């Protein structure tokens, strides 16, 4: 078990309803520093909703989420944005790279927004680490899907967030690419000291992540 001070993510009695219908129910979950967790469950089980609550993009109907010991859900909007900015990087299935910027500029913008300045050395190191050194000045539309995913991972990690949340990062990939993606996420997270929380309905990833939170039965199994 992790001690409270080491708990990066802590969820208590979390429940979210839309138009009176429960779309997410997570009685309890926590993850400490370095405890990469797979958030698994079928479509509609509330994975994306949980990620939105953890990142502070939506306020749950009831319950509490603490991020790095701060009550994300009950903070005012500006403080929520601030907490997300400082502690969380996000990787979406649809990448969401800024189309008008090169790979390097995408990372630079993410760093500037999170840290207030860009660190070119860190950016170059990360771009090299994800194998995009030769594509650093390419526009997103010039990248293959695999290259885009690697760029998106690098962007999520470039401001050295404590938590990296990934929403269905492998669902569109074949086995080999799905494992490569998971390995890349794990290795870059280890390198930057980030803790991963990966939402997926992809059971292939279970082998890589010993900790899972199954949303149909929301309990942490070790």
């Amino acid at each position, binding site marked *: 078990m992790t001690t409270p001070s080491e708990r990066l993510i802590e969820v208590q009695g979390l429940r979210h309803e839309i138009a009176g219908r429960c779309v997410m129910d997570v009685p309890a979950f926590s993850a400490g520093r370095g405890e990469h967790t797979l958030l698994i469950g079928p479509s509609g089980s509330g994975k*994306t909703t949980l990620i*939105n609550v953890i*990142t502070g*993009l*939506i306020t749950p109907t009831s319950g509490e989420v603490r991020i790095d010991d701060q009550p994300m859900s009950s903070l005012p909007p*500006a403080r929520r*944005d*601030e907490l*997300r*900015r*400082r502690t969380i990087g*996000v990787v*979406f*299935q*649809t990448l*969401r790279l*800024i*189309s*008008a*910027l090169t790979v390097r*500029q*995408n990372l*630079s*913008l*993410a760093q*500037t*927004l*999170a840290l207030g300045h*860009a660190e070119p050395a860190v950016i170059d190191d990360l771009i090299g680490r994800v194998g995009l050194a030769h594509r650093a000045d390419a526009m997103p539309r010039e990248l293959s899907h695999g290259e885009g995913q690697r760029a998106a991972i690098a962007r999520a990690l470039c401001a050295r967030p404590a938590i990296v949340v990934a929403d269905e990062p492998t669902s569109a990939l074949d086995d080999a690419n799905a494992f490569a993606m998971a390995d890349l996420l794990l290795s870059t997270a280890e390198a930057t000291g980030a803790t991963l929380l990966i939402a997926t309905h992809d059971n292939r990833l279970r082998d890589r992540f010993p900790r899972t939170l199954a949303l149909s039965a929301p309990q942490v199994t070790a």
Partner: protein
Amino acid sequence: MTLAGLSLAYLKDRALNTALNILLLTLSVATLVILVLFSSQLSDRFARDAQGIDLVVGAKGSPLQLILSSIYQVDVPTGNIPLETVDMLRADPTVAQVIPLALGDSFRSYRIIGTEAAYVDHYAGRLAEGRMFNAPYEAVIGAQVARGTGAGLGQRFEGSHGLSGDGHVHEATPFEVVGILAPTGTVLDRLIVTPVSSVWAAHGFGTRPHEDHEAHDAAPGDPEHEAAHAAEPDLEVTALLVKYRSPLAAVRLPSFINRQTQLQAAAPAVEMTRLLSLLGVGTDAVRAFAVLLMITSGLSIFVALYSALRQREGDMAMLRVMGARPPAIFGHIVLEGVLLAAAGALLGVIVAHGVVAFAAATFPQLQDMGLSALRFEPAETVIVAAAIAMGGLAALVPALKVFRVDIAQTLADTR
């Protein structure tokens, strides 16, 4: 990479759209600036040429024509008036100065104007070379005449009848350049100034030297001149420029002169106001068109940003996920509109000055009017500021959406 840098990157990313919007704004700003440059510089020039002249006295006819011909030297005179009018007005205690003008000849389309040294003094003319005329057929030429004809001191030339330069040449009545004036920025620059007696002599009256008489008489076959010779009417001048000594003159003198059968008096201020208000109808129409064009380009920027931002809703949600605050994103979008507008406005000013430079180089008349591409008017700043404000305003509505956006919903909708 900052959000300001991102604004620029988005503009570059849709280069064609950006270029078209800039072009549209450039056209409207250029039109407005050209109007400003033309109207302010020309009215300045009008004012400068007419400064200090309270009244013009000439033959009956159109008062505007009288002003244009005798002050601005652009129209044909209304006719001639008796020389005695000069003495009559000089005797009037409310009149400070009377400068006689005798027009009718030209040299290479530069007007030869018979007058007194006081005319040169009136426009603060300063001799760059040579001396002032003091005998018939001696001429002092304006700076532009010297440049245009290449004439230097001692150069002899023959005036031709008429003001257009294609009339009958007064052969054997050569003028001599005795002085060249420094530029004054007034009508004086494009005139050839000579004593009134030269003009009389050239037309066969009065003080022409005897040998010229013989030479002229020896050349037969000029019925116009011979007829004029036969009649030998009293000496005449074309117009008088009058300066008042007291404001009382303005009340009494014009009506007194206009009662004389042969004379008319016209006030430059009144006639130029009338002319400018007539021209004003035209410039108002062009100005309205340019303003319309500017509103159109404002709308175009609005449409461009609105549709671009619809496509970028996912990007905006991502910016929020990455921690950008709504006011910062709002500023980034407004900046995009402002950058577009600023580029269009500045290009518009450059194009306008380029067009004026081109026009002045192509049409010497405009240069004569004192049109300069290098002069900047305060109104240009107002136009540029208005264009930039409009760009910001056009971006406002799309930008305000950032405060209402539901990030989670947008992320779900724009997968």
